């Protein structure tokens, strides 16, 4: 198992380096002098520009600049925000809980809605229930989450007045953002799980399980789901990244002071070090989460371990 995890992590190294390189290049790819860009909005006196050139090592070769950027990263140093003057890593740490809460809430919604609907659809393909499940997954993929958020606010906050639309006070304030971000992902889970179950139910081992007299519930839980679930775990890993990134618009609508909302503000302010820090943080978190999901996948499915052992 450890070998599997080690190999999986090692395979991620080139991509991690590529991600760091691309994020490093953001500042260099913006047309113009990086020092001028960093001083955007402040008084860019020639002395200040020269000082910054020295400080950032902009006069050194790009390779050296990249290596020092990489070295700083390994020390957990993401540089300083040019709008708040604090370390970027602290700015991220301050806002991260709001984004994580939302991602976890949305994930719960996705699983609690997506898994039962997927099972109901997959058990009786072609039935009325299945048609409803399919309609849900088709619509769930089509309705943009930032409009869904507005519809949910209109229904639950404005008309029924049962849930708060804005703010971060307690669990109640988390319900609507989680629903608006999670329902689209629930639709994907429904679609995947339904297809996987229909596929699994056509295989001979299910027939055997039925023939030996197992109840249909038992067949579902201990036989069919074990195989069908792996399609969902794969999707989950990929979705968590989308939950972190999809939180951007959701946080803006619901006024949550999370990473996404902060990122949008900083893009407006052209605070490049902060943008780099947030983007890098989310991308690395996404890669690490996927390594962990693959590890979980390996625990659940011996075939995955074998594929990596060879």
């Amino acid at each position, binding site marked *: 198992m450890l070998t599997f995890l080690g190999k999986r992590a090692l395979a991620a190294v080139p991509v991690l380096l590529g991600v760091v390189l691309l994020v490093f290049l953001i500042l260099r790819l913006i047309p113009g002098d990086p020092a001028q860009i960093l001083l955007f909005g402040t008084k860019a006196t020639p002395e200040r520009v020269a000082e910054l050139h020295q400080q950032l090592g902009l006069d050194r070769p790009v390779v050296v600049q990249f290596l020092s950027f990489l070295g700083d990263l390994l020390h957990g140093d993401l540089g300083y925000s040019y709008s708040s003057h604090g370390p970027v890593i602290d700015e991220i740490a301050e806002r991260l809980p709001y984004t994580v809460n939302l991602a976890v809430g949305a994930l719960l919604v996705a699983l609690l809605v997506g898994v039962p609907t997927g099972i109901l659809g997959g058990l009786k393909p072609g039935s009325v229930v299945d048609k409803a499940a399919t309609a849900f997954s088709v619509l769930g993929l*089509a309705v943009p989450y930032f*409009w869904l958020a507005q519809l949910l606010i209109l229904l639950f906050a404005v008309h029924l007045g049962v849930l708060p639309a804005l703010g971060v006070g307690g669990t109640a304030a988390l319900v609507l953002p989680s629903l608006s971000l999670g329902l689209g992902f629930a639709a994907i889970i429904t679609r995947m799980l339904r297809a996987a179950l229909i596929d699994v139910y056509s295989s001979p081992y299910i027939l055997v399980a039925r023939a030996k007299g197992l109840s249909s519930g038992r067949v579902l839980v201990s036989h069919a789901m074990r195989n069908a679930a792996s399609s969902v775990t794969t999707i989950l890993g990929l979705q968590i990244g989308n939950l972190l990134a999809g939180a951007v618009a959701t946080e803006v609508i619901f006024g949550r002071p999370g990473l996404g909302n902060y990122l949008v503000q900083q893009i407006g302010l052209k605070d490049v070090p902060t943008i780099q820090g947030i983007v890098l943080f989310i991308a690395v978190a996404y890669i690490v989460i996927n390594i962990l999901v693959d590890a979980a996948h390996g625990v659940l499915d011996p075939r995955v371990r074998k594929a990596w052992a060879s």
Partner: protein
Amino acid sequence: MTAEVAGAVPRPDRHRRRLDVGGALVCGASILLVLAVVGAGLLTRYNPTEIVGTARSAPSSAHLFGTDQLGRDVFARTLFGGQQTLTIAALSTLLATVVGVPIGLFAGYVGGLRAGVSMRVMDVLLAFPGILLALIIITIGGTGRGSAILAVGISFVPVFARVVYGSTQRARAEEYIAAAKVVGCSSLRIMVRHVLPVVLIEVVVLASSAIGWTTLLSASLNFLGFGVAPPTAEWGADLGAGTRYIAQAWWISAAPGLAVTLTILLSNFLGDYFAKRLSAPRADVVAATPTELAAAPAAELTTPRGT
């Protein structure tokens, strides 16, 4: 025996005819949507950026979808807004196709180190989930329509490259490719004349679904304020403006919201339709969402994705 044959034959026919009705509906609706957006000026007498009524008045016979926060006609803004959204969506899909397909074709056919490197670059781009890569490009290129097209297009390059890479690799194993090699065709000729036509079927399917995803992404960018500048009408931007007035005037965002939903629905249906019609070998995977597409190689266990 004849009875058996007669009994067997009508089935696929009936199947095909039923498919065509659904397909015709989807194609017809898509054409209507595009026509309505292109011919916006013929369908409404209002100028989308001109104040023509009381601010935030509810839908009425004078203003079919009501007026927005400034008193502009929402129906006109939705029709004209589609010109912006669908242009960004179409051009970015084109960009993703034109860049992604050759990368996937080359990497899938040539193989070896160079292919490995180009596909790793695609992996790096895919490591930025969702809207993040587009926001990076917005940071570099600034806001505006051109920048939005570039941002959305580049975000989908790796998706096209991956799909074409996979189908090229499968096509390469076919016997007719070996035959072409035997008769002395050059690699370039085989790629363009023998592999590309097969791969193009999947590209058509992918591109028709991709219009929906690029519509969503370009609307998201505009929603966040990184697209066309006000007062230009655009679905995402108008949805963003409607957020503030949702309690008093839900109709400001209702029409653009429905328009985005309809576009994504039609685009997904078109993808499904082409997948069935052109009988692409991996129709189920191709007519999927970008997340599912990215997951597909991982499901094959040989080249895990997400690294």
